[in-house]
């Protein structure tokens, strides 16, 4: 073998310069080695392509001539290179997200009318968008059981969601029933994906935007404002009640207190009157006649000056005194005048 290489080499060298034999001989070994090395290196590189990293949470699935052989956990691993073995890596921890009824393109959510438009149980039309979150829990099943895994989940979600919306009224869908719809959809979806042995677990199903169609949205808004009007009207009435009742209670208390005051007033006055009376009575008893006259006269003294007086004689004729002094009319109000007669 060396002579062949030698010949080759020698010819080349000769072609260039008249170099000596020794050098040619030493060069002679080199190409032979390099050819081997190339082959060896190629083989080595080929073998090296079998190294791979499995990240935490991932699973490596190795097939030999197409048939599944084993799965590997995290770390640096090796499989036989290309035509013999093939590798797939699947994350078992990553939560994957699927948009139904809309697609986020460059951060902007665009409605997909075909997916979001549906009939509710009471035959109303409603737009529903949803997010499905799922996780691969069986790498083998996920890789090999179903073609177009994501498309399958999308189809199944659409079907499950519409089935669930179809048994609820639009009011349920729009308001109170959301949680229930999510739960039921999740259940149905899980069931469906089980039937396809997809190796996927649905972790969450979330209703996103749920709204009535554009054409009738104003009518729905009016219902919402009617609800507000209702509570506003009722609140006003409560306000009236809160204003009127305390006032009434106050008035009532006022009335009662006033009466209580009046009661005490009556009693105390009575007691006062009585005390006065009793004092006078006491004195009166000591000198009945005199006191009686005195009291009478004192009273008259006090009372008479103010009043007009007409004095009649015993025969019913007008007293002369009065005629003279007052011309049938009034006696002068003061007692001095009367006395001056």
């Amino acid at each position, binding site marked *: 073998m060396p002579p062949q290489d030698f010949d080759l080499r020698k010819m080349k060298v000769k072609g260039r310069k008249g170099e000596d034999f020794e050098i040619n001989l030493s060069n002679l070994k080199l190409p032979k080695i390099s050819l081997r090395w190339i082959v060896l290196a190629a083989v080595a590189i080929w073998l090296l392509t079998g190294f791979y990293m499995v990240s935490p949470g991932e699973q490596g699935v190795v097939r030999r001539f197409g048939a599944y052989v084993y799965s590997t956990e995290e770390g640096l691993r090796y499989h036989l290179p290309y035509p013999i073995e093939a590798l797939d890596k699947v994350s078992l921890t990553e939560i994957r997200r699927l948009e139904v009824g809309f697609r986020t393109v460059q951060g902007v959510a665009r409605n997909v009318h075909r997916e979001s438009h549906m009939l509710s149980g009471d035959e109303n039309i409603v737009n529903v968008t949803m997010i499905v979150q799922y996780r691969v829990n069986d790498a083998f099943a996920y890789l090999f059981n179903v*073609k177009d895994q994501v498309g399958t989940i999308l189809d199944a979600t659409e*079907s499950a969601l519409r089935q669930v919306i179809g048994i609820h009224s639009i009011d349920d869908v729009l308001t109170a029933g959301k949680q229930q719809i999510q739960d039921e959809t999740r259940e149905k979806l899980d069931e469906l994906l089980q039937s*396809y042995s997809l190796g996927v677990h649905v972790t969450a199903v979330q209703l996103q935007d749920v709204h009535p169609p554009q054409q009738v949205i104003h009518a729905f808004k009016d*219902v919402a404002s009617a609800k507000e009007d209702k509570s506003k009207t009722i609140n006003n009435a409560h306000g009236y009640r809160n204003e009127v009742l305390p006032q009434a209670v106050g008035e009532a208390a006022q009335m009662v207190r006033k009466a209580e005051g009046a009661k005490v007033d009556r009693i105390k006055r009575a007691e006062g009157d009585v005390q006065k009376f009793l004092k006078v009575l006491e004195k009166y008893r000591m000198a009945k006649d005199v006191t009686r006259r005195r009291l009478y*006269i004192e009273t008259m003294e006090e009372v008479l000056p103010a*009043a007009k007086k007409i004095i009649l004689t015993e025969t019913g004729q007008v007293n002369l005194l009065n005629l003279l002094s007052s011309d049938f009319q009034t006696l002068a109000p003061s007692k001095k005048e009367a006395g001056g007669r």
Partner: protein
Amino acid sequence: MTKNATPIPKGLYLLGGFILLAIVVNMIFFTVDETEQAVILQFGKFVRAIREPGLHVKVPYPIQTVRILDKRILEYDSEPREIVTGDKKTLVIDNYARWRISDPLLFMKKVVNEAGAQTRLDDIVYSVLRVDLGKRDLTEIVSKRAPIMHTVSEECTAKMTEFGIEIVNVRIKRADLPEENERAVFERMEAERSRKAKKYRAEGRQTATEIRAETDKERTVILAEAYKQAKTTEGEGDAEATEIYAKAFSRDPDFYEFWRTLQAYKHTIDDKTTLVIDANSPFYKYLQGTTQK
């Protein structure tokens, strides 16, 4: 030159031999993936089916050939189509099915490939759906899908078995009204909503009126109760006062009468009073006495 040419072919032989080997290996061996199944044909005639993945052997090319088929669950998604329901309404139905090749031989004989299968599925699933949905009312289709999908799946499975196809299930994705009918639905929805809105507002007014009426009533009751209590209290005061008076005055009714009369004079006589006094009356006598004083 011949000298040189001779040594090189030795490597070429090796290479040639290797290529030849590869070709032979390739002709004899073939792989079936986890996701695949295969059928071996000999001069176009079926020999055997291979469902196990891995490395397999066959007689080389012109004699035996391999056809690879998918083993996974495959997709079938129809275009939305109109279907007339039992109550003569039109619905746009969009359904899908998931299926797999269960019998590679039958499959190859009857439908040849996946495209052929799609056509079959189209025909059969649609006809089964149309017949089944044609027997049901719109409401039922919308709200009771589960049993419908179940029976449709079963019927389709039965019909597809002869093509070597197993139906996993047939599912209705969408069951919507055609666009021309939607306007009517919108009108109905609007009417329903406005009815609801009116109802809410009326309910609000009703409740408010009730609250106000109740409030007014309570107010009246509170005031009446207070009035009652106030008058009772006042009465008690009067009664007690009366008793006090009576007790004291009964000690000398005659003097009381006199005393009280005098007080009454004080209260009743003023500058608007005209007294007509009989000259014989004791009052006059006193009056004279007063003047004499």
